[in-house]
């Protein structure tokens, strides 16, 4: 019994979040129609507690992860890194929901409930080495996201976004599940550690062994599973839902999809690829096919960033442009995974952290802007720079960061990605990524151009001090992080993540 309680302690953050979701739902039911801000504050408190627990957990975890619930749940620094950022982004999204002028009319309790539910899904998705739990976490995240995307019941755009999301999401779930079932059939296990490296007597066959025997089924299975992840993180050619869903969904939800959901997808992708193929991690027998997967990912990365950037060039809507930009950034992150080294994975994690920061800012700006004008097209931004200087300059910081220019965290992240990729022999990919930054400058700075370079059009000056404050803080963080202010925690955390992953991967077999 004591051992049981101890094990529950490991998933305390998840338990707190679950309790929080139920509490929010119940409270909304009891307080129907009255001040909804209290629910937001309650959510923030719950998230703060979760974050505190996660920090405690980080401190207690060593280099090595630990498992609970019969090996289903793996608590390691890799997962905790992503959970911390999920909680952080959830808190910012919650603030956005509270401050967004368009979000008051609907059942706000359910809104928070679904958001928290989605993050519980993300939590389990990033902290498991077992494909069953990974799949369940992913489904929980997805189902909550589908409902959230369609939250504006009366809006055709919202309904359509949700429908497209669930239809393509269902397809990807089917494809991925079939891939998992094939992997199970090939190896006899659902545990990624055993799949990557199955020692004698473990009752499983490692994927590498099966690859030597029958390469084609293994390749098919792996590609099918990767397709599922690619859908979640909107990598070409599984990206086509992204612009539509991002555009149609309520903007705070889009923020969550672009930041929290995508990062969780990447975490699972990195864990999957890392456990099975990380060439400097496990044993030599997988190097041969690990490199091939790396090459496949590198090609996907190149296509994704190029297509995302080129499509973003001709968007008139800021929201849609940010959607394509998030596709392009998925391509950048994928560079890290394609490197197939611990440094590459750490770089991908660091870049995701940077991406959290700058994208939260950019979407926060979008919410502010929609609140002011009721529109989301770039041309309506005219004169924003002169009417709302603080917010507009913050947005310039985010744009600079998204382009990947110093002195912002976007540059820092890209630099580390470039290192990892060149070190892994992917110099051609780095050159493509560099050219892509130049392309991206063009559309990001259309926003700056609209805000500052055109004469202001008369509009009602409406201020939203709360949002402006958040944006300001995010902008300062973006710059300070780019100057290396948080180098110790951030770089340190990102570096330790894959380390824990790798040690776990080598260790899993002997368990």
């Amino acid at each position, binding site marked *: 019994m004591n051992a049981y309680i101890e094990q529950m302690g490991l998933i305390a953050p998840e338990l707190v979040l679950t309790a929080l979701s139920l509490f929010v739902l119940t409270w909304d039911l009891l307080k129907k129609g009255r001040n909804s801000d209290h629910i937001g504050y309650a959510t923030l408190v719950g998230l703060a507690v979760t974050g505190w627990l996660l920090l405690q957990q980080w401190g207690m975890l060593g280099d090595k992860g630990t498992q609970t619930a019969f090996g289903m749940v793996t608590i390691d620094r890799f997962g905790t890194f992503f959970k911390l950022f999920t909680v952080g982004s959830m808190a910012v999204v919650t603030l956005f929901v509270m401050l967004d002028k368009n979000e008051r009319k609907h059942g706000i309790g359910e809104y928070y409930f679904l958001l928290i539910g989605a993050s519980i899904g993300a939590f389990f998705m990033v902290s498991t080495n077992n494909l069953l739990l990974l799949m369940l976490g992913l489904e929980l995240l997805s189902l909550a996201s589908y409902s959230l995307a369609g939250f504006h019941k009366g809006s055709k755009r919202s309904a359509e976004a949700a429908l497209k999301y669930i239809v393509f999401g269902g397809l990807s779930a089917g494809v991925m599940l079939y891939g998992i079932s094939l992997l199970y059939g090939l190896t006899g296990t659902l545990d990624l550690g055993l799949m990557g490296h199955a020692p004698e007597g473990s009752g499983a066959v490692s994927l590498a062994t099966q690859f030597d025997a029958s390469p084609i089924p293994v390749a098919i299975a792996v590609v099918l599973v990767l397709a599922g992840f690619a859908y979640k993180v909107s990598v070409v050619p599984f990206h086509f839902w992204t612009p539509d869903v991002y555009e149609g969904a309520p903007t705070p939800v889009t923020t969550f999809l672009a930041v929290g959901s995508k990062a969780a997808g990447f975490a699972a992708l990195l864990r999957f690829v890392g456990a099975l193929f990380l060439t400097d991690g496990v044993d030599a027998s997988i190097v041969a096919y690990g490199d091939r997967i790396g090459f496949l990912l590198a090609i996907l990365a190149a296509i994704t960033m190029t297509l995302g950037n080129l499509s973003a060039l001709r968007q008139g809507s800021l929201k849609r442009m940010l959607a394509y930009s998030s596709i392009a950034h998925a391509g950048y992150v994928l560079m890290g995974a394609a490197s197939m080294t611990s440094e590459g994975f750490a770089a991908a994690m660091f870049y995701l952290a940077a991406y959290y920061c700058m994208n939260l800012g950019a979407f926060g700006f979008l919410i502010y802007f929609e609140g002011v004008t009721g529109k989301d097209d770039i041309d309506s931004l005219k004169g924003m720079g*002169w009417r709302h*200087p603080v917010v507009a300059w913050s947005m*310039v910081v985010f744009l*600079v960061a998204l*382009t990947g*220019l*110093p*002195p912002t965290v976007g*540059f820092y992240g890209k*630099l*580390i990605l*470039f*290192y990892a990729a*060149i*070190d*892994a*022999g992917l*110099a*051609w990919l*780095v*050159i493509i990524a*560099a*050219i892509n*930054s*130049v392309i991206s*400058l*063009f559309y990001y*700075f259309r926003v*700056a*151009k609209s805000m*500052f*370079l*055109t004469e202001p059009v008369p509009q009602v000056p409406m201020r939203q001090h709360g949002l402006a404050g958040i944006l300001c803080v995010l902008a300062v963080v973006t710059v300070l992080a780019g100057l*290396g202010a948080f*180098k110790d925690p951030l*770089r*340190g955390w990102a*570096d330790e993540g894959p380390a824990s992953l790798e040690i776990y991967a080598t260790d899993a077999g002997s368990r």
Partner: protein
Amino acid sequence: MDHILSWITFLPLIGMIAILFVPKANTSLIKTIALAATGLPLVLATWLYFGLFDKMSADLQMVDRFTWIAGLNAEYYVGIDGLSIALVWLTALLLFIGVPASFGINKAQKSYYALLLLLEVGIFGVFVAQDYFLFYVFWEVMLLPMYFLIGIWGGPRREYAAIKFFLYTLAGSVLMLVALVALRLDMGALIDSGTAEVVSALSGTEDLGRNAYFSIPAMTALGGAGLLTGSTLPFGGDFLGMQFTTWVFWFLFIGFAIKVPVFPFHTWLPDAHVQAPTPISVILAGILLKLGGYGMIRACFPIVPQGFDDYSYALGVLGVISIVYGAYVALGQTDFKRMVAYSSVSHMGYVLLGMAALTEWGMSGAALQMFNHGTSAAVLFLVVGVIYDRAHHRDLNGFGGLAQVMPRYWALTTLGFFAALGLPGLAGFVSEAMTLVGAYQSPRPGFKLLVIISVLGIVITAAFLLWAMQRVFLGNLNPKYKDIKDINAREVLCQAPLLFLCIFLGILPHYLLDWMRPSVALLIQNLTVN
């Protein structure tokens, strides 16, 4: 005084932050702060030039150095030597002149001066940075203020000009970034390997045992010793059939050449110049173009001397094309400012030609030419600004006989034009003559031919400048301008120091040459591949 370079670099930043807290309406206070924040660095830079700097030494001086981002092995590492000190001083001077020259601007003054000061931080930073990461950060920090300064306060096609400037420069800098990342990886592996060759190459520098993978002096030392060849990288020093050093050389060179600008990367320049407001044109022509030339001799050629050695003739050819082509196109312009912009392309061609020759005269001439073009081009843009403020157009054919109504303006303009076309006795003559003589002396084959062709550029330059003068100032007075006001005291004060420098350095060029001689000698030694 400790940390003088850091003070010079970051005083404008302090000024910028101060301006952010001043109410928008209080423009006189904003201007005062801007004057102080650009004036103090000028005072410090002057003191540095004449007092603190030891001109007999080729070493880095006034060094500030500490670990900045440990995870990247990037340092905050600033220092100055004979190649950069004159340019630092010129930056301080031109930015200081840029503030009163901007007093005519009435739109969004708070943002304007804040951005101007941020720009100054970036420029100073590039000139003093000795760590490539720091260098790159400052290099990019300049872009953003420049984009807004052209884009918000520029002429009718400012949006186009601003984004074109930004895109061109960024295209160059991402190439630089790729080369930089590769260099950093190679540096890391070399230094970590700690072989005897590496140690002996680094011995005598401060970088021995520091693990400063981004340090430009360390890169120079290892590059000069022929060790920085990319052999530790996965592709083993040979990428897609070309040597690593060749790739790095061209990536870095193109990054800087866009800034210079060297033909064929020059097309952003006329647009940016024509659209930018006068003070920004002055800074653009006076300083920003020099960053390209400075970058080449600081952070491109010495790091990959092999690449420089292999392609120096190509560089010379590019330089000559810039000289002749820039002058030829300037001849055909009817827009005063566009003409001056193309003349910059032509004048910066001498810099490249002089550097490519790799002789002491050529290299010193190139360094001198950068400074002298900084003063003469700044004067020319101020001259254009004066007439544009009054007539609101810049069509060379739309004036005529202005000498009768604006005698003082005519006198100053004449002096500026003569400085630009290289009249003996003025600064431009010394530096152009030095580069040409230096190139002619070059032991490398073919440079004599290049010199002969580039003389054509001098003739065309004289032609377009004198022709422009004739059209604007001589002949019959255009009756539209019979009441035009002559140049005022503020405008004279802006031009006077620059014109003084043009004359002074024409007579006593050793006030620059003495400072740079040891560094130039060291540079040539580093660039000579044996």
